[in-house]
């Protein structure tokens, strides 16, 4: 038996199904997950550069994988059937360093019950969130640790422009109650009514609404930040064959059918089905985003963000 050490930022409730299906289709290969938030997984991979522990990275933001690629840590490989996937969601190099699985994008979770109590109006745009009535009512993920947080920030910088982006965030920051470690916590907190507004992503939002949480999903009209969850093989893996098998599988149809259960957009066109809580035109709501730009500027942006907002000592009232 081969055991593959796979680093992932996928949510725990997805992992089981993927693992089961893969191991069923590839007997003799076992997966050992190492799961954490996108930022942490990225940092961990970078830290282990000298002595990599992972064989494969799966379900990690493409913007993060691009950072690894720049460090020369990824083993380029074209999985079987990679040509069937949308070009937009696969590394442009040949063979590609990473191959996309699905897309996840920004969503605001808005607790209607609490909003009614507080007399809050449902926001429709990112700019709505800077209104004074939201002061202390918003939670969003910390971009340093959360992939969701990072694509929010990079999207704002892209959509509003560098200067206005930071100005926007300055204003938003005044309304933020907490920056959370993970991307799904803001939505969970919104669902629990702890804070009425949570900036999160669509998969978690839809799940919670399905579970009966009194939230509405808001897709701000300026456009949604997004990222691709992708798979890559680590350079120097001792289980290259098994790793390739996993890369093949992650690009396969059966895998995409599993992704579809959780995401509105998957790498293989035509697999996705409509979701009751996510509008059909979701893909059009996404902004035009250059993942390479996100990756190259990641350090710089995070440093700036941390300097501006993370040092804040008093929680917002």
């Amino acid at each position, binding site marked *: 038996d081969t055991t593959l050490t796979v680093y992932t930022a996928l949510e725990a409730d997805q992992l089981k199904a993927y693992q089961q299906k893969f191991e069923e289709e590839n007997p003799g290969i076992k997966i050992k997950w190492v799961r954490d938030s996108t930022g942490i997984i990225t940092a961990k991979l970078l830290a282990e550069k000298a002595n990599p522990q992972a064989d494969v990275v799966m379900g990690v933001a493409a913007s993060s994988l691009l950072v690894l690629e720049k460090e020369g840590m990824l083993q380029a490989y074209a999985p079987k059937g990679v040509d069937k996937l949308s070009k937009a969601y696969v590394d442009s190099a040949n063979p590609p360093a990473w191959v996309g699985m699905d897309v996840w994008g920004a969503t605001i979770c808005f607790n209607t019950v609490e909003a009614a109590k507080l007399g809050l109006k449902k926001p429709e745009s990112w700019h709505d969130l800077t209104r004074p009535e939201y002061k*202390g009512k918003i939670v969003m993920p910390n971009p340093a640790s959360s992939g969701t947080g990072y694509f929010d920030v990079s999207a704002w910088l892209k959509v509003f422009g560098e200067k206005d982006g930071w100005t926007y965030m300055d204003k938003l920051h005044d309304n933020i109650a907490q920056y959370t470690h993970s991307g799904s916590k803001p939505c969970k907190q919104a669902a629990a009514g702890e804070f009425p507004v949570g900036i999160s992503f669509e998969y978690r939002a839809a799940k919670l609404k399905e579970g009966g949480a009194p939230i509405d999903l808001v897709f701000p009209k300026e456009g949604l930040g997004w990222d691709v969850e992708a798979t890559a093989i680590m350079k120097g893996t001792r289980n290259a064959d098994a790793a390739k098998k996993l890369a093949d599988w992650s690009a396969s149809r059966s895998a995409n059918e599993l992704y579809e259960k959780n995401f509105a957009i998957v790498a293989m066109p035509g697999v996705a089905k409509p979701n009751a809580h996510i509008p059909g035109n979701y893909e059009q709501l996404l902004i035009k985003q250059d993942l390479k730009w996100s990756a190259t500027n990641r350090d710089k942006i995070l440093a700036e963000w941390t300097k501006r907002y993370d040092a804040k000592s008093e929680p917002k009232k």
Partner: protein
Amino acid sequence: MIALRARARARIAPERSQYAAAGLLWALAAALVVFLALPLAAILGKALSGDDGHFAGLAQFVAIAGGERFWSAVSNSLAVSVTTTLIVLPLAYVFAAALTRTRMPAKPLFRALALIPLLAPSLLPGIALVYLFGNQGVLKGWFPDGSIYGFSGIVIAEVFFTFPHALMILVTALSVADARLYEAATALGAGRIRRFLTVTLPAARYGLISSALVVFTLVIVDFGAPKVIGGQYNVLAVEAYKQVIGQQNFPKGAVIGVLLLLPAVLGFVIDHLLQKRQRALLTARAQPLVVKPNVWVDGLGVLACTLIGAAMLLILGTAVAAAFIKLWPYNLTPTLAHFDFDNMDGGGWAAFFNSVKLALATALFGTLTVFGGAYLAEKTPVAPVARQLVRMLAILPMAVPGLVLGLGYIFFFNDPANPLHFLYGSMTVLVLCSIAHFYTTANLTATTALKQLDAEFEAVAASLKVPFWTTLWRVTLPVCLPAMLDIARFYFVSAMCTVSAVIFLYTPDTVLASVAVLNMDDAGDTAAAAAMATLIVAVSALVCLVFSLTAWWLGRKTQAWRTR
């Protein structure tokens, strides 16, 4: 040459049985060096190296000290620690005074209530506070608008977490009282207040200082509570965690670790010096104080203890309740859904069983190591250098916060050049780390028990030509059995609750319940986190019960000689 020969002559040929003892002592000394001293050296080394891993002197310190962010964390940490200390001390003093200086009823019950926090990880009060005072909290009105997140929340959680630690020290301090001093003061015409100021307070002085130091240190290095309830209120311990785990910036984490080591070491040194002086103050001729009943004093004692005990119960009860409520506050139907850990981030049920495994292994091997070490260090004349080394290293963990130890462990064991690198990521290293982390307290218990044995037992055995292990087996172990059970229980509960050291060391295979609490809370699964914390408390409480019963049963079987 002459000096050498003189020293050679000054030796008595060791007995054969003593070679084994010397070997074991050296093995233990080596283990303590490897699992305690070297990791600490590693963290120092890391703090002095640059991002590229080369020696950089104090560059990292300078870099960190330059940031506004760092200084706000420092002042926040100090504010939280000082405030908590100022709140805990009077509360614990009143409680301890009620337990030791009144004749109030139900003392064992109150005592048990007060010790509840020891059974829970420091994350539990944080979670409970969210449910009590958060925006959807039952008592939201007390802290309007989410103000529980941050300073107030951390302080309340830390008060809960540190209360029993302060209490135990103060109870010890207050239970040694010289009745004659009170009588002398009375005979000289001193009233209640003068007696308190001139007799009670001076006698409890060192206890107060000592507990203040302990509370301060515990708070400043704890990151469980601030992580859960701290919101954006950044403190040093969380900062170290973020640097290492969040950004994998080891040198920066190491620097903060080293800085956190300072208050702990300082407190430890002060405490050590004070205890030496205190020993000089306590005469062996003290007459035990017999407290007389007094309706008013006893009534006040009951009132104070009831209030404090109720607060403890409220916090614990909230966490337990949260674990069983479907969707607070919208759907209050009871459910077991939050115990479905396998479908949540954090590690699932495996985490829970890992914790139990860790706790059992720590209790078993920890007790054996600690007791064996204490025995060899106290009762055998061999290997004086090793003995001294063991004694010195044994008090070291007291001054090393778990966070720092954990950091040291990653730096040391994650280094591929280290021949012990294979231990990294294993359960073994978690067990070793837990044993080392709580070594001092356990060792103190063992040493105290051993010191109560007549120092001449070994001499008598030698004169009767009985090897030392026979005496160990027939006399020392049976007599020290209650102390060993105490150590095992302490190790079990501590390993069950610990977060600070192991957070840096666990892997997906070895994820632990306490870490799962943290991760689940991080992911927003607060109810599941409460459920896991509840499980930890339940298991700890159960094990305490089992240990008490075992002690009682063994006591009846093997301690008959204690009764006259």
